[in-house]
């Protein structure tokens, strides 16, 4: 499929799926997104299984008006049930989702984690910094990069 160029106004309206089990991290990410003036709708999955359910459109997630397919999945690594790498593997093995943009967002800078994520087809690997200001810097840059990036159109 040829990538289509999406302009900034369109990216702003695309859903971002945050897969994060830590309640504090979810709160902090929301706070930082707000400070970075991010307008994209944000959906949150609390663990790997929920993320797969969301992407599959299971149960109430079947309502794609309420739960649209995301333009980017921002995925934590260490989570209960299915971890981020397992979800990534599932996504890449799933025919209609294997071009979905997945960015890992984790505190782990373990070389083996980074290598495995790359091997499994992660599009980016972001390491959570220790300070809120640094996180804000990263998120601002991340939004800027993504608003100029081209994403493949996804079918349900």
């Amino acid at each position, binding site marked *: 499929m040829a990538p289509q160029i999406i302009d900034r106004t369109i990216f702003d309206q695309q859903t971002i799926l945050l897969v994060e089990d*830590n309640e*504090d*991290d979810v709160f*902090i990410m929301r*706070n930082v997104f707000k400070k970075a003036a991010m307008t994209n709708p944000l959906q949150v999955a609390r663990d790997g299984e929920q993320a797969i359910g969301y992407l599959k459109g299971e149960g109430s997630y079947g309502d794609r008006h309420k739960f649209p397919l995301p333009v980017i999945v921002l995925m934590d690594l260490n989570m209960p049930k299915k971890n981020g790498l397992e979800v990534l593997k599932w996504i890449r093995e799933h025919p209609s989702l294997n071009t979905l943009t997945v960015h890992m967002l984790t505190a*782990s800078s373990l070389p083996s984690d980074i290598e495995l994520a790359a091997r499994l087809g992660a599009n980016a690997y972001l390491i*959570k910094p*220790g*300070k*809120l200001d640094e996180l804000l810097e990263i998120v601002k840059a991340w939004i800027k990069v993504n608003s100029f990036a081209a994403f493949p159109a996804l079918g349900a």
Partner: protein
Amino acid sequence: MEPDGKDGALLRGVLRAGESAGQSTEQLRLATQHLASIVEFSDDAIISKNLEGIVTSWNAGAKRLFGYSAAEMIGGPVTRLIPSHKQDEEPGIIARIRSGERIDHYETVRLHKNGKLIDVSLTVSPIKDADNRIIGASKIARDITEKKKTEAELLRRERQLKQAREELLEHARKLEQRVEERTLELRESNHQLETLVYSIAHDLRAPLRSMQAYSQILLDDYVSGLDETARHYARRIIHSAETMDALVLDLLSYGRIARSEMFLEPLALESVWKTALQQYEKDIGDKQARIETVPPLPRVMGNEVTLGQVLANLLGNALKFTVPETAPSVRFRTEERDRLVRIWIEDNGIGIDPEYHDRIFRIFERLQGQAYPGTGIGLSIVRKGIERMGGRSGVESTPGKGSRFWIELPAAGP
């Protein structure tokens, strides 16, 4: 006396003398008498027998060896001396003698009068008459019991030695195998430990991140609801969280440098130094530090990541331990000594009392209080990292006159 050699030759000489015409009977008699006395006093048993195996002569040596007197043996069968399990030897010996053969140093066992077996070495030669017909055999028997014993002992010792050697080899093999197993186990447990340390550090950092972030959110978003004391407390929480985060990160770095496999390669010192400078770009700008890099910067043998961290730590210290109200000045230069490169990082900071020059490289050692916050791990990473790359590190300093830290690594050539 050497009956087999000299006397054997003599015997043959006498026999030939007897055969040749023109020899006087007297000469022959004298020679025979001489010969008989040699035979009689020989240490060896000298026996003769006819082709039917009947003993025809028996010397004193034979009596000593076999226990029988000449009277007992002469006229009797020689097979008396042969133990039952060796009886079939005699027909073979007789057959060979008949065909004119001589049997040399044939080792076997014979029977003593007292029933004991004796190890003997036999030399059997045909006896011919005047017409050159074979009429019997002379037999020289030598007691080789001692020799056999010695041989048996030698063989036993040899076997013992061989066995001991095999046991030793087996031990060595087992030891090697155990060392291999232990090494593998150690590597495995080392790896597990590293993974454990990593996940502990990861889990320790998560709540710190939250503490830092929530306090920061308080200051950012709820500042109007907080008075100065409350804001101060929030800042103290942030500071503590950040200190502990730095501690966890430094401990992780130290652990990685102390344990991880270290691949060494020729490094362009200039690019590693530049990377360290970039890391402190903001600090250098903020403090208006003067950085002087003095060429040449030769290539050194090292690990890029580790040397990068070592240089960054030393640079960080030079920018940190500064005299108040004084812009930091850092000089980076090298010295080539034999096949080593000594790298100097010199500053105009507060300096270090010589009493502490060794201690500051130890983990958790700190000389300064709140004025210069730190984890006390930075220089221990420097020392450990340089050590792991096969080099040395040190400092020259006087309080108030700056510090000159040095590290030494093998030169990598041009």
